[in-house]
């Protein structure tokens, strides 16, 4: 800076440095004789000239900052502001060249006035007051340092306010900072030290100071290791065993180590402590002379740097990653927040270390020691470790899975860790909460990155919206949301979408707006409700409320606008043959058409018949909307099918209703219809058979040889009627009516559409099972078909029989009439030839027709009995109770039981059968 040599300075006249110095000495010592002064003057000149170059860098800003800091520390913020104003003024005046020198000088002399004996008391008071104020954080209770539990609570409550970051760690660190040394570094010039020295020692003291108190520090680790004698002994033993080439001499100053460590804490290699790839850790140069315990301590502390690097790398990597999603982003943001707190700690440490470096006068008392460092970083190290663990645990996860992973760490036993993790989780859960909010109130799925646990498939069309569009992403369900809740949430949003898209209903759903809910929502407006589920069930309540509102709305719309219940009734009435008169009439009308081959049936003809049937029966009073949906459908043809096999009624459904009556459901309905229709037809046929029997019985009395046959036919028909009646009864009352009643009850009680759907499915399932249409009953159904076929066969046979018999009757009657006519005309009633012919025909009838018919009948009845027996055996072995009961009903008088040994002990039989499997 200054270019003049001391000699030149002395040479200049009046205001030469020498003269000035002389003046100064005189002024300082008060008005004394020159002789007294000269000694001091000599000393002053010596000191000034020998230390011409400043020992520290001249940085005006730095000095100004230090002054400000000093003032602020003393609680004189207003003075600090005033100082900066003065400083600015000084800068603007710009007349002084060496502002730094002046400021530095003033700073060095700061408060020295007080140490003079005029005001000793104020200095003491001030000195005591300082430690509390010498912190960057406003206020920290002092007892934090003494009781760890209290400090935990302190940091805990701290975390509640804004962030639970490392900052709380800092506050607890920087709070007690001054406590171990009664003087904060650079605060005060310690009075005792200065006053006690005589002029002789001052020179050496100055020299010491100017070299930079490093030498004095060297003793520190020495002392430290000595104080922990045991440890050092152990380490010595270890050291000799481990690495003989390691330099353990005491060459290095602690300050240097501390400075390096502060760098390492920031993830930067220091001069001595560098990152070692082999060990994946920060390691001290093995050639540097440092005692073993210190080295270990340094390595232990350096872990913080390693952890910091790890977390930081993760944050940097993930914040670049666009596909990481919102949850991920909030996770990195939370980590970043923690890192920021950590930076604050670093800033404090650095400032502390800087002051150590800057310290003008102080020596070992103010220096930042390794042990202090280890105490201060104890908490942050712990936190950082947790963060690193979190980062490790959440490496490849995103979205809900990430939240789950973090949530699993909240169960940590350590309260501080729990606080840290739950704070992070709170932030992480926030986007999830946002999505949830949108979903359960607006049905919107704002999830670009597939993080939410509800997934939508955009390719699914409206008709299948309910069943297929939205699914649960199981892996993304956060562990703090139960599976039931997740399903409920899925349902809520789905219902909203269903209302909007399928029902085209855009009226608002009452939910969020209601007053009492809002009160509770203070908590709702926060992700806490996710996490505090154990403590209060606000979350559950909120979901329940949304669920109730949405579902009720949906059901109302379904029932009122779409008349769901009417459609259900119509299904029962038409497809399940509930409307008896209509079905009977339809069958009457269709009879002639349906006996034809299936190929010659025309849909339009049948539709016309259907119209007629509707108009002629009570069905006409039904809602036209429902009747319009009723239609005829022909099933797929297979060769040899008659109209009876392919005819089916159909019911068209669309819109929201089709969500319940899905195409699959309709196929099931058609199958049931087919079965019922067949059974109905049997009934119909048998009625016909009975009618014929009744009509013809009287007529055929005249052919006495037919009576045993007629009787046989009669009993056979009765057997069939009994069978079919019991079947019909069973189907109509035990299957249809019971299941339908159950369905009706459940539909009316249903809370949401899913309940209705499931009730309906259960209904269909039951019907199918009991109507022998499921897999298990396949052989039973075949058996039943055979019986049905027998009935049809019987009808044909009987028809044939009656036709022939009536012809015979007619022939006989006409023959008799002819005889009578001739008798009246006075001729012979009959000729021999005619008589012969008559006899021949008679005999032929008796010999050919009757035995053949008898044989046919016998075969038929035998087959029927066999079939029914078989059917009964199968029934008793069936797993369904009601079917087993049907067996009892069919064989109520135990006719079949008497014939079939297997039926005699159904239970034993069943057991045997089971053993066979």
């Amino acid at each position, binding site marked *: 800076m200054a*270019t003049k040599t001391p000699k030149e300075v002395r040479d200049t006249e009046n205001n030469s440095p020498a003269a000035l110095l002389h003046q*100064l000495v005189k002024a300082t010592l008060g008005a004394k004789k020159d002789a007294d002064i000269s000694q001091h003057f000599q000393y002053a000149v010596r*000191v000034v000239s020998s230390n011409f170059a400043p020992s520290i860098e001249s940085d005006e800003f730095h000095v100004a900052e230090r002054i400000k800091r000093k003032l602020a520390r003393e609680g004189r913020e207003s003075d600090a502001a005033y100082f900066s104003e003065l400083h600015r003024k*000084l800068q603007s005046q710009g007349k002084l060249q*060496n502002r730094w*020198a002046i400021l530095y*000088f003033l700073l060095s*002399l700061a408060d*020295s006035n007080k140490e003079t004996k005029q005001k000793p008391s104020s200095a003491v008071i001030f000195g005591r007051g300082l430690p509390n104020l010498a912190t960057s954080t406003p206020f920290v209770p002092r007892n934090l340092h003494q009781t760890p539990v209290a400090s935990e609570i302190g940091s805990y409550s701290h975390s509640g306010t804004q962030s639970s970051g490392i900052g709380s760690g800092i506050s607890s660190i920087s709070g007690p900072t001054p406590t171990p040394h009664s003087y904060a570094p650079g605060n005060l010039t310690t009075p005792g030290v200065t006053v006690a020295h005589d002029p002789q020692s001052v020179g050496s003291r100055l020299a010491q100071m100017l070299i930079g108190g490093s030498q004095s520090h060297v003793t520190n680790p020495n002392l430290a290791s000595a104080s922990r004698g045991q440890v050092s002994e152990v380490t010595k033993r270890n050291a000799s065993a481990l690495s003989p080439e390691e330099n353990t001499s005491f060459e290095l100053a602690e300050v240097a180590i501390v400075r390096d460590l502060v760098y390492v804490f920031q993830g930067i290699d220091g001069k001595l402590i560098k990152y070692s790839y082999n060990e994946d850790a920060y390691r001290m140069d093995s050639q540097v002379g440092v005692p073993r315990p210190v080295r270990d301590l340094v390595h232990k502390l350096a872990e913080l740097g390693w952890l910091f690097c790890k977390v930081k790398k993760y944050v940097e990597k993930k914040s670049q990653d666009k596909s990481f999603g919102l949850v991920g982003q909030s996770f990195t943001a939370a980590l970043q927040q923690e890192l920021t707190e950590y930076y604050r700690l670093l800033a404090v440490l650095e400032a502390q270390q800087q002051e150590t470096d800057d310290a003008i006068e102080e020596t070992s008392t103010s220096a930042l020691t390794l042990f202090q460092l280890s105490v201060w970083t104890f908490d942050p190290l712990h936190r950082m470790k947790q963060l690193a663990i979190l980062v490790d645990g959440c490496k490849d996860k995103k979205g809900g899975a990430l939240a789950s992973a973090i949530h699993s760490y909240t169960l940590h036993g350590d309260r501080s860790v729990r606080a840290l993790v739950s704070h992070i989780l709170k932030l992480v859960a926030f986007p999830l909460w946002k999505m949830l909010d949108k979903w359960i109130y607006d049905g919107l799925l704002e999830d670009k990155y597939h993080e939410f646990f509800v997934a939508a498939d955009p390719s699914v069309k409206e008709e299948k919206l309910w069943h297929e569009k939205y699914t649960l992403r199981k892996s993304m369900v956060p562990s703090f949301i139960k599976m039931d809740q997740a399903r409920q949430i899925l349902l809520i949003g789905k219902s909203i979408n269903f209302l909007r898209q399928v029902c085209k209903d855009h009226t608002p759903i009452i939910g969020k707006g209601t007053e009492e809910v809002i009160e509770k929502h203070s908590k709702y407006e926060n992700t806490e409700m996710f996490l505090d589920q154990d403590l209060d069930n606000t979350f559950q309540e909120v979901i329940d409320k949304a669920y109730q509102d949405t579902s009720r709305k949906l059901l109302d719309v379904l029932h009122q606008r779409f008349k769901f219940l009417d459609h259900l009734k119509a299904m029962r009435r038409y497809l399940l043959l509930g409307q008896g008169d209509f079905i009977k009439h339809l069958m009457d009308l269709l009879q002639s058409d349906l006996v034809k081959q299936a190929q010659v049936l025309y849909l339009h003809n049948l539709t016309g018949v259907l119209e007629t049937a509707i108009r002629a029966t009570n069905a006409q009073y039904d809602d036209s909307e429902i009747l319009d949906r009723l239609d005829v459908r022909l099933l797929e043809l297979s060769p040899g099918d008659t109209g009876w096999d392919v005819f089916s009624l159909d019911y068209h459904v669309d819109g929201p209703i089709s969500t319940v009556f899905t195409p699959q459901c309709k196929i099931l309905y058609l199958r049931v219809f087919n079965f019922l229709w067949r059974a109905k037809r049997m009934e119909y046929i048998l009625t016909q058979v009975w009618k014929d029997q009744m009509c013809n019985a009287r007529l055929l009395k005249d052919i006495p040889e037919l009576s045993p046959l007629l009787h046989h036919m009669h009993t056979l028909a009765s057997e069939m009627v009994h069978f079919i009646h019991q079947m019909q009864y069973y189907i109509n009352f035990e299957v249809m009516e019971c299941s339908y009643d159950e369905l009706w009850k459940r539909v009316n009680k249903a809370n949401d559409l899913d309940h209705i759907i499931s009730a309906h499915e259960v209904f269909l399932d039951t019907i199918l099972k009991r109507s022998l249409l499921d897999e298990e009953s396949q052989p039973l159904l075949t058996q039943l078909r055979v019986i049905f076929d027998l009935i049809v066969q019987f009808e044909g046979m009987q028809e044939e029989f009656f036709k022939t018999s009536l012809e015979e009757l007619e022939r006989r009657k006409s023959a008799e009439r002819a005889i009578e006519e001739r008798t009246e005309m006075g001729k012979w009633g009959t000729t021999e030839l005619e008589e012969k012919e008559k006899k021949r025909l008679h005999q032929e009838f008796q010999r050919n027709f009757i035995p053949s018919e008898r044989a046919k009948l016998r075969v038929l009845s035998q087959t029927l009995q066999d079939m029914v027996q078989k059917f009964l055996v199968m029934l008793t072995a069936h797993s369904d109770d009601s079917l087993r009961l049907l067996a009892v009903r069919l064989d109520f008088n135990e006719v079949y039981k008497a014939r079939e040994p297997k039926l005699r002990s159904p239970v034993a039989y069943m057991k045997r059968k089971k053993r066979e499997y």
Partner: protein
Amino acid sequence: MGAESGQSKDPNLSLAEQREVMDTLQQISALLNTGLTPEMLSTIVQLCELGVNPEALASVIRELRSVAAALESPGG
């Protein structure tokens, strides 16, 4: 940076301006509680402007003060 320009009694530095600077410094000195009289301060400013090491200067002042105090106390 020459010593000439560093002179506080630079001719182009008017008396008023000088006083202003000194005032400011005096205030700072008061803020920092240095206990320097205006005369001492002006001497020191001059010395500093001449390029004297402030560190050394400060230590000298401190030493002298302690000496003065030592001298006074037995007398008082």
